[in-house]
């Protein structure tokens, strides 16, 4: 197992210091070369585990020709970019747009609305919190496939079919429980004194939350944001029901991918699917890369004594 002392990256990037000052506060730790190698090897194995299938996706997406695509040999050609061309030949950029809007809106609304609720549950006086939490949790637990028919009916009457709203509203509702739980644990971990200080300083409960608690919960907020974004980006069932067609309107990426067809009936469009998958995975990796920067330790260091 590894050590969990907080370790900001900035320090690591100062290369000269890096060797001695491995971690914040510069705790002394001996590192034999053996350990370094061991860790590197472990890292290698983990990356292989995580990335090999993705590598498979990329290789497959570059293959052309029916048999290459179905070959167990990753390096069996011929290779080309035709699959990608085909993907974008199908208005895929519009699907990307829809997914971005829907996942983005879900993330923003979820964080905004969920933060408040989580804060109220973690810190404000409310009665029957456990019951409330259970209720919140319950929302996301009903098998969604059973909710689809009545929701479809409801959405049709509300005119929400084939709209962005029709997607991000339910996404928000179904992701809120997760958001609330994650953020709640975060808020609870922030020393209560801080918020009390803010209240004494004349901040309203909202200001205390907004200016003091939320910034300190950044790691949680950004982790939650990554999760929400990915979940709503990849959601299929509701998207496929409420906006199954028409990239121009609201069809999202996973639905579009599921609608890919081979050249002839029965044929599985592996090439285009993998290409599309690579295309849609990359924005999420970028988002994860950006957001993870905010997942850092020690935000509350130095704030309270005792």
């Amino acid at each position, binding site marked *: 197992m590894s050590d969990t002392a907080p370790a900001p990256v900035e320090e690591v990037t100062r290369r000269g210091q890096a060797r001695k000052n491995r971690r914040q506060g510069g705790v002394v730790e001996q590192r034999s070369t053996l350990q370094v190698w061991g860790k590197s090897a472990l890292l290698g194995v983990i990356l292989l585990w995580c990335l090999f299938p993705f590598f498979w996706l990329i290789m497959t997406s570059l293959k052309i020709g029916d048999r290459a695509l179905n070959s167990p040999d990753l390096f069996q050609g011929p290779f080309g970019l035709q699959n990608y061309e085909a993907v974008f030949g199908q208005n895929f950029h519009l699907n990307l747009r829809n997914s971005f809007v829907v996942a983005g809106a879900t993330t923003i609304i979820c964080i905004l609305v969920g933060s408040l609720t989580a804060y109220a549950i973690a810190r404000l006086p409310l009665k029957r919190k456990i019951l409330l939490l259970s209720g919140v949790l319950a929302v996301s637990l009903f098998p969604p496939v059973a909710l689809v028919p009545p929701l479809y009916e409801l959405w049709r009457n509300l005119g929400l079919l084939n709209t962005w709203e029709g997607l991000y509203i339910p996404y928000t509702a179904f992701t809120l429980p997760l958001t609330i739980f994650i953020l709640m644990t975060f808020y609870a971990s922030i020393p209560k004194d801080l918020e009390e200080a803010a209240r004494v300083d*004349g901040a309203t409960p909202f200001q205390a939350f907004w200016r003091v608690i939320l910034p300190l919960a950044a790691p949680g907020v950004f982790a939650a944001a990554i999760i929400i974004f990915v979940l709503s980006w990849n959601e299929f069932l509701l998207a496929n029901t409420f906006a199954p067609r028409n990239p121009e309107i609201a069809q999202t990426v996973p639905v579009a991918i599921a609608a890919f067809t081979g050249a002839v009936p029965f044929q599985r469009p592996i090439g285009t699917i993998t290409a599309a998958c690579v295309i849609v995975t990359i924005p999420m990796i970028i988002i994860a890369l950006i957001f993870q920067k905010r997942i850092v330790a020690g935000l509350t260091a130095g704030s309270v*004594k005792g």
Partner: protein
Amino acid sequence: MAKIEFDGVWKRFPDGTEAVKDLNLQVDDGEFVILVGPSGCGKSTALRMVAGLETISEGKMVIGDRVVNDLSPGERDIAMVFQSYALYPHMSVGDNMGFALKMAKIPKNEIEERVNKAADILGLTEYLHRKPKALSGGQRQRVAMGRAIVRNPQAFLMDEPLSNLDAKLRVQMRAEIAALQNRLGVTTLYVTHDQIEAMTMGDRVAVLKLGELQQVDSPQALYDNPDNLFVAGFIGSPAMNLAEGTVDDVDGEIRVKLGTLSSLKVNDKALERYPGLRSRVGGKVAVGMRPEHFFRADGSTPQDQMMPERNVTMVELLGSEVLVHFGTSASPIITEDMRQAVDDPEAFAEMEREAREGGQQFVSKMEPQDAPKVGDRVDVGFRADQMHFFDIETGLALR
């Protein structure tokens, strides 16, 4: 500006701990009251109740002429220095100090001005842009101070605000706080463990014990006329020496006998302050003697004002003065009350042992030039007018 009034205030924590019990205390408008008491006696809790950070289990809390039991902290308009500092870790020192002003929508340049001024006072100017985590403990405490003093609130609540500062800075800060409080006339409740702060800064000092208020009075009055054994033992450092004494009437002159050896005269001045002593003749009382009222006796000291040939067991050089510990055969006081005040079973056990053996150590403060050596046998004088007397059971002063 506003008065603060505790009106029969109780605090019970969910686990049943009663941290504050039926507290009745009025801090007048503009007054500076110091709250002292042993660790864990409920000082912080009381302060936090004023601030609105703890619910009030029972009783009424009044600020100005409003009952504030249900007001949120922000609405009470008080500034507080937290015992734990509670700095905003994501804000620079400057932002920490300016936060309350920002909340109050004070213009930016005024905020800056006030923060700079406070930083000047606190010696934090060069750290204004640092985050709290890159500060030393004392610097953090000063930031916590700064957050309060930039404001101009109805009341200041300060919870051991200088405990982590060095002596020099502390002297300076004491002066600054006093000056500030004077200038603004802000009602102030101040918790401290520092005897000097307690004695010099406040208009009045309130002594708490196990959540119960013992005495509120001006510092000197508290020092000179403690209401009970607890206050007597708590105020003053080193603490008052307390021992069991037998009251005798020798030819109309009241005397107390401590242990087997000494019999000290109680002069009229002392009797004036403790008239109750007369009715105790023949009985036992608790006798209190402050270390600084001992002196190295010489030929001119009357026999009935000294304890002859005391064995010096320890000498502590404090630079400007010397603490001389010497043995006596006086029995220590053991009341339930004391026991609680001591709050330490082992020390208590030792005291009991000493009591059985009939003897305890006294501490005296002497001039360095008078300092004996350990092992010396010296005659120790005591100023007869400075004795204190308490009921041995109730602990109350024999007034």
